[in-house]
């Protein structure tokens, strides 16, 4: 979230699209309803009439996976009718920047497409640069080279009528959504997995960013783009980078060709030197010195072409690459799409180690009904894990609040916190390597790893927050880290710096809210630097004064010559006023310092003359890129009932990834055989893969099992009554559940043709007190090329009454 749960009360309008927060994030509704009491409007776009939709002023039923089509129409509407916030667009976005002359978009493809490699060469996606290597800016938005002009041209194809034919939402309703959302300020967008579980995931969210930047809603109380994250600590675990391609604090992980720290900086900019060195100091302590490149060579270097994201790991497992899987707090046999990949993959391991509260499906894959245990040679170790309230530690919520809790109970039976298990395992492994002189074992032997005999979670959080390595004292604040020279400080995750600097700030419990804006600055600690609303510099005008007198977040104090406010100012330097280059930057994490309507290839601070010694030059900060285009484009899901109305020859994402090392494991179905669209989702009574909730009797009573939700028309067509058993089949698998015949799903028109969506809640499996068939028997592991997110939300199925 750019903002927070408690900030939702400040909004005048909500576009909730890709989230059923009334069921999956009930706390959201507490704050949305407060805003509604003050007159805010609620717009819900969803494939089903959900419980959230029941609270909406405007509801639109959409065909799964077609969001970019209607969002594109909203962007076009904003541009054509000049509904954008002109000052904001000119000052805080790259609208005026001149795009490279070679940039082009034609027939579904951006310039630089390499059909053989299924990737883009992105050299033409940059800016026109001046002799100082800085982007050229036009004088007005009328200039045909500007980002703004490219935006107008790109989205000119997205008319309301075209969007209706693609999405199934009537054109008049899309216009009503556009008008309602554009008229209310501030307005916010809420989304969750309904937007991300597509092969166009990243570009869908890019569409949100473009809308919110054009309307000037980012950085404001009641505005922003709020990703409602799905698990108790998924924000924290993303910050800590349990992801193959990053290191804690959103540092890129090193790749094979990064021989040295310098090579790494050539790719990633000098801005990453301090956090990476601080991380290496946290991990290798005194062993990491300037002379030995801070032990950079100790880190594993991943192979770019392997792209080992979650689904791909199971693909590699099927190939036999992994002998050992250590699986902590994760139930892949239920949660991974096309679960036959998981079933077959786990059987290829020598050893599977599972740490969990319950005997989840993944731990007992060897005795799933239909599987012969004698044929499965995998040794399985199941470790009993302590629950959240049985251990000390912190969790980071969706609004980036790092909240500490002390253990309230002893772990049940012999169960142990994962912290203790990991600590114990590491120390045992180190013991096994004692005395080795093999260079490959140096990282294990030289790692800094001392959290006490009984490992202390607070000591770990202190390592994450960081130390002054000269004095051995805790780093008091993020500012202290930022001004220290590289190599003199350590931080395990630099964005958390300061959380334990002056006492354990994550444990703070002062719940006062003097501004009345829901900032709660003295409750726990929000990263970075306790800023509650990101990019809040953009809530001020060019003079540094708040544009919304009712929702003042930060301001420049011209007398004291400092940025101050109700929130922590999100500025480069609090003493640099709005008349300085630093003080103008509203998006300091972008190399341009402004919001990026067009995701251009660009690195700030590139030297004008290359280094004399024939080395590659190092810039300051490279831009984040989208691998499948600098602007969002609508592509059909991999399995779709129709072809792309904008460019039928490039129907789905041209960069889509479908890992299938074992031939035939990821079959793609055709609409002739599988005419209906399946979408999967959760229910309020159960949580994710159900490992916990399906073992809680009261919840099983409330929601005993999965079902297939179908429209009355479809029920009539297949001769099914409410409650009948139906078989739902995709190209990959089939399952039997009872059908729920409902008005919540309606037949809709796609390009003039009647179309049906079927909905199945997904979180069931063969184990637990309440077993049931899992919808991931049907889904496809087709991945967004940038994020690696699978397309759970749209695939093709057939259905029949049994």
């Amino acid at each position, binding site marked *: 979230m750019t903002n927070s749960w408690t900030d939702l009360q400040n909004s005048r309008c909500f576009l909730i699209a890709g989230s059923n927060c009334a069921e999956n994030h009930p706390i959201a509704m507490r704050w949305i309803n407060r805003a509604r009491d003050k007159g805010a409007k609620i717009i819900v776009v969803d494939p089903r009439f959900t419980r959230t939709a029941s609270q909406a002023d405007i509801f639109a039923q959409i065909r799964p996976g077609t969001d970019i089509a209607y969002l594109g129409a909203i962007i076009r509407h904003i541009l054509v009718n000049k509904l954008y916030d002109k000052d904001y667009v000119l000052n805080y976005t790259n609208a005026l920047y001149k795009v490279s002359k070679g940039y082009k978009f034609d027939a579904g493809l951006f310039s630089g497409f390499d059909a053989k490699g299924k990737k883009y060469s992105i050299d033409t996606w940059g800016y026109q640069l001046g002799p100082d290597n800085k982007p050229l800016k036009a004088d007005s938005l009328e200039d045909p080279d500007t980002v703004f002009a490219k935006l107008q041209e790109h989205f000119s194809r997205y008319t309301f009528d075209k969007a209706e034919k693609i999405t199934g939402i009537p054109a008049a309703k899309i216009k009503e959504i556009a008008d309602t959302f554009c008229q209310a300020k501030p307005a916010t967008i809420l989304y969750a997995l309904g937007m991300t579980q597509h092969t166009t995931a990243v570009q869908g969210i890019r569409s949100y960013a473009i809308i919110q930047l054009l309307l000037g809603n980012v950085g404001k109380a009641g505005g922003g783009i709020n990703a409602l994250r799905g698990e108790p600590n998924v924000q924290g*675990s993303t910050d800590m980078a349990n992801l193959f391609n990053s290191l804690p604090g959103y540092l890129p992980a090193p790749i094979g060709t990064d021989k040295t720290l310098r090579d790494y900086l050539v790719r990633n900019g000098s801005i990453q030197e301090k956090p990476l060195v601080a991380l290496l100091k946290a991990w290798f302590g005194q062993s990491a010195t300037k002379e030995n490149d801070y032990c950079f060579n100790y880190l594993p270097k991943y192979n770019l072409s392997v792209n080992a994201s979650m689904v791909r*790991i199971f693909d590699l497992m099927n190939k036999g690459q992994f002998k050992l899987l250590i699986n902590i707090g994760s139930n892949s046999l239920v949660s991974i799409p096309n679960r036959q990949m998981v079933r077959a993959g786990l059987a290829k391991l020598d050893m599977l180690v599972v740490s969990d509260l319950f005997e989840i499906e993944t731990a007992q894959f*060897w005795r799933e009904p239909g599987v012969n245990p004698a044929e499965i040679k995998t*040794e399985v170790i199941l470790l009993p894990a302590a629950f959240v309230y049985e251990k000390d530690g912190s969790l*980071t919520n969706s609004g980036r609040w790092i909240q500490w809790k002390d253990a309230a*109970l002893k772990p049940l039976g012999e169960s142990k916190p994962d*912290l203790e298990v990991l600590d114990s395992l590491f120390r045992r492994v180190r013991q096994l390597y004692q005395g080795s002189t093999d260079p490959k074992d140096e990282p294990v032997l030289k790692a800094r790893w001392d959290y006490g005999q009984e490992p202390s979670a607070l000591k770990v959080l202190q390592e994450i927050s960081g130390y002054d390595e000269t004095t051995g004292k805790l780093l008091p604040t993020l500012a202290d880290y930022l001004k220290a020279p590289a190599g003199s400080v350590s931080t395990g995750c630099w964005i958390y710096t300061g959380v334990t600097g002056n006492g354990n700030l994550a444990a703070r419990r002062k719940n006062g809210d003097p501004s009345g804006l829901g900032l709660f600055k003295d409750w726990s600690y929000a990263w970075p630097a306790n800023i509650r609303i990101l990019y809040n510099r953009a809530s001020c005008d060019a003079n540094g004064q708040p544009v919304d007198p009712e929702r003042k977040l930060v301001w420049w104090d011209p007398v004291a010559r400092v940025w101050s406010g109700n929130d922590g100012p999100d500025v480069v330097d609090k003493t640099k006023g709005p008349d300085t280059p630093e003080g103008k930057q509203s998006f300091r994490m972008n190399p341009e310092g402004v919001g990026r309507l067009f995701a251009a290839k660009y690195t700030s601070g590139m030297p004008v003359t290359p280094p004399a010694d024939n080395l590659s030059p190092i810039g300051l900060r490279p831009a984040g890129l989208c691998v499948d285009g600098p602007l969002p484009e609508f592509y059909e899901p991999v399995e779709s009932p129709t072809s792309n109305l904008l460019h039928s020859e490039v129907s789905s994402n041209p960069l889509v990834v479908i890992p299938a090392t074992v031939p035939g494991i990821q079959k793609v179905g055709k609409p002739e055989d599988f005419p209906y669209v399946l979408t999967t989702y959760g229910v309020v009574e159960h949580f994710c893969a159900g490992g916990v909730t399906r073992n809680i009797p009261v919840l099983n009573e409330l929601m005993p099992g999965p079902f297939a939700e179908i429209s009355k028309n479809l029920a009539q067509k297949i001769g099914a009554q409410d409650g009948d058993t139906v078989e739902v089949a995709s190209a990959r698998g089939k399952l039997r559940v009872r059908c729920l015949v409902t008005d919540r799903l309606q037949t809709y028109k796609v390009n003039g043709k009647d179309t049906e969506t079927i909905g199945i809640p997904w979180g069931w499996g063969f184990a637990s007190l309440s077993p049931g068939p899992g919808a991931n028997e049907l889904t496809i592991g087709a991945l967004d090329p940038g994020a690696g997110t699978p397309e759970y939300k749209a695939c093709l199925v057939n259905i029949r009454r049994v």
Partner: protein
Amino acid sequence: MKVSRRNFLKLSGLSLTALATGLGLDPEIAQAKGYALKTEGSQKLPSICHFCSGGCGLLLYIKGDRLIHLAGDPDHPANGGTLCPKAASLRHVAYAQERVTKPRRRAPGSDKWEEISWEDALDKVARKIREVRDSSWKGSEQLPDSKTGRPVSYAVNRAEGIAMLGSAEVDNEESYLLKKFSQILGTPYNEHQARI
């Protein structure tokens, strides 16, 4: 004190206890004694909900080392004492009969679990980590040079045979140690739910 119909009904629920303890039927005394809540005398400890990313505050009522009641934390700014049905059910996890309470091992080809000690479990896993790390070690690999495109040998330091999954379900400190552990061992193959 006047005994209204409403008070009488309240009282009648207590009357058996009242009689049994020999208090007689003096409603004033019975009412004062009768409404001791099960939470009386318990210690209230705050915690955080473990479902969606709302981070709502929980209040755990602990009496004699046992969790006897769980409610929303009224001081928490986000939920102000409220809880959704899932969060409210969290007290059932503390003593759920289906919880795994001892380490278990399933031998290759076996159709059942056997209980093992923590010592044996951790020892087996640690030895397996070393075995797989050593046998699957990839010190270097041939990659195209960034300038010439020709294959060149680069040091990559990877334990190719070990993968680690997890987790959005554990605390920050645990998630961090998991990452640190995997990087020190040399496996970049650490993924988790945020990807999906």
